[in-house]
Structures are given as structure tokens and as C-alpha cells.
């Protein structure tokens, strides 16, 4: 915990954060980021018992984006949640949702049985009893994780290297995105490295009140990446929550040696590619594409303050038609929308986006975030893609 006292001191109580908070707009039960973060932080020190006012916060970080004073509001919320769970037991459901890597390691060897075990009507009822949202299907595990497929992959060797941070979603549910990234980099004469020992970035643990586990995850990742960051090799993630955590959140929460040096090397994949393009380092003889797409910017991308590099890149590809949905948060927020008592809020938050998607008639919805894509597909039936998958078609 770093400088927390001074950080909430910067709050002017202007209430911008509460105005933009999608959860506060969806339910009056939530006091809003200003109250739950900076305002209550003034009362937490004298208090004898910690509070759970932040439990409705989905850690989407729109508050942080809006704050004119640079207060890490969502991090204050997560800290207060962590403090609460230092004194109270977690729900089993929250443990399951926040330990995706462990669950993935357990479930993957038994695919498709494990998917069947989760998705059949009986177990869905049982999951409901454990506090999962019955109407929100969990994503299905793949038989071969990204890392397994990556090891089997024959890459052409190039002097330019880039480290890829897969994260849980791509590893266990959506390895195709990782493979698309490798293909795009190969086409541009980069060799992709996935060091051993990488795991969950830690953000689901933070959001569910497991700061200890999250800090261990951060330490492990920093250690696994150290030799590459020391050598000045960029670290790239296709999941915007992973890249946000590596760049920023872990630094606000923990004091891990080497974390700041790592953060300085981290890029979101689309950010990295856009920078290469602007420096004239990407190949320019691109294939002609076609299609009409709608773009959704994940909250954790917007919080990085790097604009919409994926949208910009796709807009410059020959033959593509793409428009920005500009409809706010999808509502799922990683693990939040899978919870029975948060499902209604999550759906209400995503409603504006779902309407845009349904009305758009687009061939597919493009978004960097895996859980955003999952939410959009479940809610609207629309096909979804990561921008890197579209780029692969142009570069190969």
C-alpha cells in the first residue's frame, strides 16, 4: 500500500466519478466511487470494523478515468475490500472466480468432460446455489491451452524479440488470440517469447479481495520476466486487464522490487503495433479485407490513457469499415457479472452497449477484452473478435 493517505487527500469531492460510474447508474444501492473510496477512507482509520461498501464496485475503473485529481479511486475501493476480507471469510464462489489459473489447470486435462460438468442443467443449478449467476454461462475451457499450442509452434527466429504475456483468458479459453498475435509478429519479423513461470496477472484476485494471492502472482510474474525486462525487451499482452495490471494497478497496490522497471516495458498489443506502424516498422503490403465491424473499447483499455490504438489500426486496414460503439462498460467486469447477486447490475450496465450491438447489423463486434467479448456474445448473440485476429488476416 503506497501513499494511500496522500492520494485520497487529493479528492476535491467534485463527484465526476459518481456521475460516470456505471454501477452507481444501475443501482442506488451503490453509494458511488466518491463515497466508497475517498470519502469513506477518512472514516476507515478510526473505525473498529472494516466495511464492505466497496463490494458493489466492479473495479471497471471509469472513476479513475474521470478523476481530475488523479485519485486511484478503484484501488482505494479494492484496498477497503481487502481489509474487510482480512477479518471475514470469503465466499467459495469468489475464490473460484478469482483463481482462474488454478481452475484452468485442473479443468483443462478433462475437456470436454469438465465443460460438460459445468454447463449441464444440473450443475448450473448447483452453481446457482453457490452464488453463480444461473443465466450467465461460464466460458468453456479449451482442450489445448495457448501455452501448450505455443510450445508446439515452429517460429522463424528473428533478432527482434517480444515477450507475450498470455494471461488466463487467452490461455484457457481463447488461445486463438494468442496464436494470432504470434502470427502478426512473425509477419513483421519479430520472434515471440513466452517465458516459463508466467501466470495470472492478479487482477481477479484483487477484485475479489485476495490481495495476498494477487501480490504473490505479481512477484512471480516480475521474477519470470526480469531477464527480459533487464534486456530491454518489450512485454505485450492482448488482454487489456493484464496489461493494465502490469503497467499500473500492481504498482498502486504493492511494493514489489522490479515492478516499476517491468511496468515501463509493458504494452497492450494494439498499442505496441500502432507504435511500430507509426515508426514505419510494420510491413505495408497488406491484404485487402472486407467487412463491417463495430468496435467496443474495454474500460481497462480506456483507463490506460493510450486512446483506442486497436480501433485506429483497424480503421487504417484496407477495405474495413469500422465504427466505435462508444457505449460505456459492458457490465461483466471480469468476474463480476458471473455472480448471482451482481448479474442484474451487470446486465443493466451493459444494456446501452447491447442495444448498439443489436442495432448495428455489423458482421462482428471487435474488442480487446475477452470477458467483454463473452458478455457481448451471450447478451446479443453477436460474433466477436479481438482486433489482432482481424489484423492477422491483413498481415499474412
Amino acid at each position: 500500500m503506497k501513499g494511500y493517505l496522500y492520494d485520497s487527500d487529493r479528492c476535491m469531492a467534485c463527484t465526476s466519478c459518481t456521475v460516470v460510474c456505471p454501477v452507481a447508474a444501475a443501482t442506488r444501492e451503490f453509494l458511488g466511487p466518491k463515497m466508497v473510496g475517498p470519502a469513506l477512507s477518512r472514516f476507515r482509520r478510526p473505525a473498529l470494523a472494516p466495511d464492505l461498501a466497496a463490494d458493489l464496485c466492479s473495479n471497471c475503473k471509469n472513476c479513475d478515468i474521470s478523476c481530475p485529481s488523479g485519485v486511484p479511486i478503484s484501488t482505494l475501493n479494492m484496498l477497503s475490500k481487502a481489509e474487510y476480507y482480512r477479518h471475514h471469510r470469503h465466499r467459495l464462489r469468489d475464490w473460484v472466480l478469482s483463481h482462474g489459473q488454478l481452475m484452468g489447470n485442473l479443468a483443462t486435462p478433462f475437456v470436454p468432460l469438465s465443460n460438460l460438468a459445468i454447463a449441464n442443467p444440473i450443475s448450473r443449478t448447483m452453481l446457482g446455489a453457490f452464488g453463480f449467476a444461473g443465466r450467465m454461462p461460464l466460458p468453456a475451457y479449451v482442450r489445448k491451452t495457448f501455452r501448450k499450442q505455443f510450445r508446439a509452434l515452429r517460429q522463424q527466429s528473428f533478432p527482434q524479440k517480444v515477450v507475450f504475456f498470455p494471461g488466463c483468458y487467452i490461455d484457457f479459453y481463447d488461445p486463438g488470440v494468442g496464436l494470432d498475435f504470434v502470427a502478426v509478429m512473425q509477419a513483421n519479423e519479430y520472434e515471440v517469447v513466452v517465458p516459463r513461470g508466467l501466470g495470472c496477472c492478479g487482477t481477479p484476485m484483487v477484485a475479489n479481495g485476495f490481495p495476498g494471492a494477487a501480490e504473490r502472482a505479481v512477484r512471480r510474474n516480475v521474477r519470470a520476466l526480469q531477464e527480459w525486462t533487464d534486456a530491454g525487451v518489450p512485454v505485450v499482452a492482448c488482454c487489456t486487464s493484464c496489461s493494465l495490471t502490469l503497467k499500473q494497478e500492481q504498482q498502486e497496490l504493492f511494493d514489489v522490487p522490479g515492478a516499476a522497471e517491468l511496468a515501463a516495458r509493458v504494452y497492450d498489443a494494439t498499442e505496441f503495433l500502432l507504435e511500430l506502424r507509426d515508426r514505419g516498422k510494420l510491413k505495408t503490403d497488406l491484404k485487402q479485407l472486407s467487412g463491417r465491424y463495430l468496435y467496443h473499447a474495454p474500460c481497462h483499455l480506456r483507463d490506460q490513457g493510450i486512446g483506442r490504438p486497436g480501433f485506429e489500426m483497424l480503421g487504417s486496414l484496407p477495405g474495413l469499415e469500422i465504427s466505435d460503439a462508444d457505449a460505456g462498460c459492458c457490465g461483466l467486469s471480469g468476474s463480476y457479472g458471473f455472480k448471482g447477486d451482481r448479474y442484474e447490475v451487470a446486465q443493466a450496465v451493459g444494456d446501452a452497449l447491447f442495444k448498439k450491438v443489436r442495432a448495428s447489423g455489423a458482421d462482428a463486434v471487435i474488442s480487446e477484452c475477452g470477458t467483454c467479448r463473452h458478455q457481448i456474445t451471450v447478451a446479443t448473440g453477436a460474433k466477436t473478435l479481438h482486433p489482432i485476429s482481424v489484423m492477422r488476416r491483413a498481415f499474412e
Partner: protein
Amino acid sequence: MDSVTVVVIGGGATGTGILRDLSMRGVKTLLIERGDLASDASGRFHGLLHSGARYAVTDPRSAKECIEENAILRRIGKHCVEKTEGFFVRLEGDGEDYEGQWVAGCAAARIHAKRVDLKEARRLEPHLSRRAVSVFRVPDSAIDGFRLCWQNVASARRYGGEVRTYTEATGIERAGDRVVGVTVCDTLTGAVDSIGCDHVVNAAGSWVGRVASWAGIEVDVKPDRGVLIAFNHRFTNRVINRLRPPANGDIFVPHGPITVLGTTSSPVASADDNVPHVEEVLELLHNGTELFEDLPKYRILRAYAGARPLYSPGEGRAASRDFTILDHSTDGLRGLTSAAGGKLTSYRLMAEKTADVVCRELGVKAACRTAAEPMVEDPPRRLVTRARPFFPPYGLDLAASRLGAAFGPVVQGLQMHPEERRLICECEMVTLAEVESAAREPTTFNLGDIRRRTRMGMGTCQGAFCSLRAVGALVSHDLVADKDGKALIRDFLETRWKGIRPVLWGDQIREAEFQREVYAATLNLDGTAQR
């Protein structure tokens, strides 16, 4: 013309304490105050309930008095005292000899001062200076002066005591060598009146001399100015004192969400001058930074100044904090008693001694019971449990403590009208129901009165949001029928501004500009935009 047995002049801790004491002894008593209760020294100090340790070396008698009264107030004033305990911290370079004298002084005064292991002290107070070499814990506490005065009054009312605020005494009426009444002026309407009585108690704090002069008697009370700073956060959970001879800026007191740093000491000609100066604030910060090295990074909310009513031959810190009860029959006038000097921690004792003199003269035999009975009852446990869902986290206990007897009706309102649960003041977590409850009191005339009863407007935004909301609520509920809403906001913001102006830098200058944008630019409160 009304008539009572005793009129008390002055609505600070001493005056309200005397009102309570006399009322409990069955004496019909009326207190008059020219402003709101606790609007001077009793609301303009660091809110420290001394353990007496501060006076252990310099003023052993005060030290002994303090520890005795401290124990009593923690018992009878549970809802205005926060039992924080205190640390005395000696830093590198502070004299070791003094520490020895101090330990002996505490022992002599029977103040329990126990050495704390340095590692433990740092664990308990992580922001404390790394230069600490000795730490002792003592039973210091925090006390809310506004609430103390109102709870004294709440207790007095149960025994028939009465209060008139915004009523200024303008003269003492006499018949021969006897006091027969007081002339008063309503400071809001200007209406003049007189109140008949057998006895007048002069508890006007720094203005004791002025009141006595109306009877042709000289009482030489010297006002001694003290400046304090309120910080936005509670960066210490304990009262922190510097273990060295008392000096400026060496006490920190946590109060709910904030911390107060004080104080300075300088003689002033008039106690009415309570505008703090930047120079004084900087001196406090300079000294305070020795105890909390990160102090310059902490956000300041405001500064304020008050005056100690010193009554003794010495001056400033050398003057005794002791009190003196003056029975003016020795000056040839019967029916006038002045309570001079003193400090907040021993206000109850001062009130008891004053009431003893008054009762002796009135022939009243009843003994003092103020140390035995709590000032306000605890709210029933079942009511507190029922109320929990109506308040934000931490809001319930604050409200239960500050509301006293009004807690029950407020909870009922919150249950029946969920919209009343909305927060008017988010920084201090004051619900609409509480603001309305305070506004309905016959002694409430402006937003400042509501502030002193609820803490509305005392937090981070210093009134930027709550003044507008409160006035909106008051107007829509016809609680300010004959008043100008714009004037209410303006007066309230002006008093906030008075405390912000001397600390106008860092985060607070941004806050002040934000507030100005809201009221001056957006709402055109100062009429900048012409039609």
C-alpha cells in the same frame, strides 16, 4: 419581562456546565448567549480532553484536576468524548532531564503514564517521526466542544433549565446593592428586553471583564490567542504530545475523520479577533513536522483561532490554566458571581464550584450531582440495530452519538421516508433527516447552527455541496419560511472561507476554486453576471 432565579451569561462549556449544575440542584436557571453555543473558545480549541500530563511539570495543581475531571467526563460524556488515549513523544534532541521530571510529575498527580516500546508505538502510529526516542501512553482523549455544550443543555433541560441563543447581555440591572436582572438584546432582530433574576452568573469566558464592568467591577481576564489547523485525514489514532516543556504546535488530536494540530499562544487585546494568519499556520506546520515528518504532504482543511480566558498574574504559557470563582458580594454587590480563567477539561469542576457559591447565597442546600449522571442516555440497543440499514457505513454510530434524544425520532423518519436517508453532507455523512431535525430546533437560525450540531460542512469539501443541498431541503420543507436562502448560503460559505483563506495552497486551493466556480460562476451567487 421574564423572571428566573439565575441568569447565566455565556454559552460555552463553563456556562452550559453551570446551567446543568444549577438545574440539577433545582434552581430555575436561564442561560443567554450572544451567538450560538460553543461559538467561541469552547468550539475553538483542539478538542483535547487533557489527562493532565501536559501540566505535570509546570502546573501540578491543574494536572491533578485534569486527571480527575478526565475520568469523570469519560464517564458522563460518553457521547462527546472519544477515548483515544494519548502518546507523549520525546524526539532526539529533546532534553532527557525533562522526561525524568515529567515522569515524576505524572506519578505525583496520579496520572497513569506507561512507557511504550518504540516498535509497538510505531506499529500503533505508523506515521509518527522516526526520531522518536521515548514514548509514553496517557489517558488523553478527544472531546467535541460543540456537542459537549449541547449535551450539557440537553441534560439541563430535563431539569427545567432553559437556553436563549443569539441573545446578548447588554447590562446588569441593580436595586441598591442587589442584582435584580439583566438587559438583553436579540442579536438577530435587535429587540431589547430584560430578564428579572435574583442572581447573575458571569461565565463569558474572555469577555468576563466586560460583563463585570457593567456592574462597575474590574476583573482582569487576559485573552490569549491560540491558532489551530484541521487536517483532512486522521493520520494519528491517538493524541500525540511532544514530551518537552509546553510550546507551540506540539499537540495533535484526532477527531473522527480529521486531525487537529495546535496551538499557538499570544496575548491579544480583544478575543473577538479570531481570524488566523498565514504566519501562525506556518509556525504550527514547522513545529508539527518534527512529530510527523510527512506533515507538509497532508492536506489542510482549514485553520481557526480562539482565545483562552487567562486569569492570573502571568502571561501566555506561564499563566496558570487555573480558574477562580469571584463572589462579588466582596465588591459590595450581591447576586453576581464571575467564573474567570479555567480550561475546558475542568469546566465541570469550575461549574460545580460556581454553583456552590450561587447556592450558598440563594440558600439552596442541594449538592452537586453533575459527576454522577450521564449527560445523555445511550440510545436503546434495539433502536440502533433497527437503524443500521438506514445509514452509510460508519454513519450510524456518529449519528447515534451526536443526536442524543433526537435519535429516536430521526430513525423513525428514516424508516418511514426512505428519501430522508439521502446524504446532505457526504464528507461527514449527515443525512437529510438529521439536517431537518437540527433545523426544526427552536435554537437553529442558520446553516452554521446546523453545522455545529451535525458537523455538516466540516469535511473535505467545506460546504461546496452541502450548503446548496441543505438550503434546498430547508426551503422545500418550509423550515426557513421568512429567510433568504441565498443569504443563508452566502453567510455559511463566508464562515468557511474565513478558515480556508489562511491555508490557501495545495489541494485546498483547488477545492476553494471549485467551490467558487460552483457558487460564483455557475450559480452567480455574487451577482457577477448582470442581467
